[in-house]
């Protein structure tokens, strides 16, 4: 390969990782931070960013550095990007057996395998299966399952783009919003952790999907995994619904660290409050209206919470998305939590430990 062909290949590789990150709707703020930390070029938006990486540079080693850096950011996002998690307690010896079975589950011939860990093209994705397919595994006990997933995007519609007849028909409306169904390649995951006696099921939230869609995605993984394990283990391993995150809501509120940025709680004075701060830098517990309200009525039943912490990469976040029907209920149950805003394993494991202490 000539130097020119080599350079073109390396540019294509760097752009492939950027395109894949864009398709995953990575937080642009998080991406900018990760690029800066790695001394890679950054920009205000996707258009100028992609232009920078297509530009000519003085030496091929620069392309190699770019590609290596972008590959690292991409793989971190696959593993530690926004996820919904359910945690199952499983006997340690069973976990050990399950962990050894994971490589054998990977399908090297699936439609997702040929490009893995990059996504398949959007054209190929349209024809791909919705069924999560084991596509990769590693020695850490992680099984990555790829699938086609539908997401809904709400976008404003510009009336000026249409002819006069349409404009007249919608002339009374201040704003027009279109709902578009898109498809994305999800990288869900099952982590088998014998040292903890736990199996974690992760639903990829890049891009974000609704609570309803998350709730629908989990049972498929659980049922499928239990079917795979039924033969070699002899019984289902993901049972009893998993850890209940509802008690963690009060703990997160009461633990002094971090900042509460959103809280759903019900009062004895017959109201349901959904409170949030305008900025991740502010703590609801310090906000005057919230403090005085709690002081006045002594106690409320929290049912949902979002909390952030400061780290070098930004503001990793723990979310427990309960419904107000759970507030103070005898059998209050929230089966999944959300981990968001993490750039790498340190942030991710920290948030997991806050949720699953």
């Amino acid at each position, binding site marked *: 390969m000539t130097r020119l062909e080599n350079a073109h290949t390396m540019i294509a590789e760097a752009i492939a990782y950027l395109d894949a990150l*864009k398709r995953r*709707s990575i*937080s*642009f*703020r998080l*991406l900018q931070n990760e690029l800066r930390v790695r001394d890679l070029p950054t920009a*205000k*938006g*996707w*258009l100028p*960013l992609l232009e920078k990486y297509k530009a000519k540079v003085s030496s091929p080693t620069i392309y190699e550095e770019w590609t290596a850096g972008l590959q690292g950011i991409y793989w971190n996002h696959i593993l530690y990007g926004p996820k919904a998690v359910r945690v199952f307690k499983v006997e340690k010896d069973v976990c050990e057996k399950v962990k050894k079975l994971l490589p054998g589950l990977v399908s090297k011939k699936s439609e997702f395998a040929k490009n893995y860990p990059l996504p398949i093209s959007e054209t190929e994705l349209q024809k791909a299966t919705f069924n999560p397919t084991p596509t990769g595994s590693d020695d850490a006990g992680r099984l990555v399952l790829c699938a086609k997933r539908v997401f809904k995007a*709400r976008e*404003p519609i*510009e009336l000026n783009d249409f002819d006069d007849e349409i404009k007249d028909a919608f002339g009374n409306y201040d704003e027009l919003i279109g709902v578009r169904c898109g498809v994305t390649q999800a990288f869900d995951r099952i982590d088998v952790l014998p040292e903890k006696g736990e199996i974690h099921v992760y639903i990829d939230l890049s891009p974000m999907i609704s609570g309803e869609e998350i709730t629908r995605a989990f049972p498929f993984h659980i049922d499928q995994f239990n079917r795979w394990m039924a033969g070699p283990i002899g019984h289902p391993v993901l049972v009893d619904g998993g850890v209940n995150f509802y008690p963690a809501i009060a703990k997160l509120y009461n633990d002094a660290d971090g900042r509460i940025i959103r809280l759903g709680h019900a009062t004895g004075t017959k109201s349901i409050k959904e409170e949030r701060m*305008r*900025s991740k830098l502010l703590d609801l517990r310090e906000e*005057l209206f919230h403090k005085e309200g709690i002081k006045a009525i002594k106690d409320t039943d929290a049912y949902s919470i979002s909390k952030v912490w400061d780290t070098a990469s930004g503001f990793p976040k723990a979310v427990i998305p309960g419904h107000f029907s759970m507030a103070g209920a005898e059998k209050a149950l929230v089966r999944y939590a959300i981990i968001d805003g993490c750039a790498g394993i340190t942030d991710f494991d920290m948030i997991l430990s806050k949720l699953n202490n």
Partner: protein
Amino acid sequence: MRRDQAEARVAEDLRANPQIERACKAILEFAASRSEEVLQHITFGALARASQLADPSLAVVAIQYLTGDRVHLLEPRFEFIDGDLIEAIEISEVNEARRNGTFYHPETGDLVTDFESKLIVHFVLSDMGKSLRNSSSV
């Protein structure tokens, strides 16, 4: 600047427009009488109510004066609000976007058409505004 000095300037500058003069003084009173904690995010609506103007839309004239050089009580702050997202945007970034006609969504990185409709202004007390609160009034 003390409160009485601020009021004197308002009287001098807005003599020809007594309605706006009264509105500015009412806003000065509002800023002096509330605790700083509740003045962290002052909306146009709050200032319009404080102005006691019969036509609240005229409050914009009073607010323009009170963000000016003569009695610099207030400073504008911008938030980009898109759906559930609220993101503080520096004035320098707003000015650059208005100059270039381009603004990139802070979370998605996409170009935002009609970004002006998503840039929402509110106000905070300037340093002068904070010191005016601490000064004695006439």
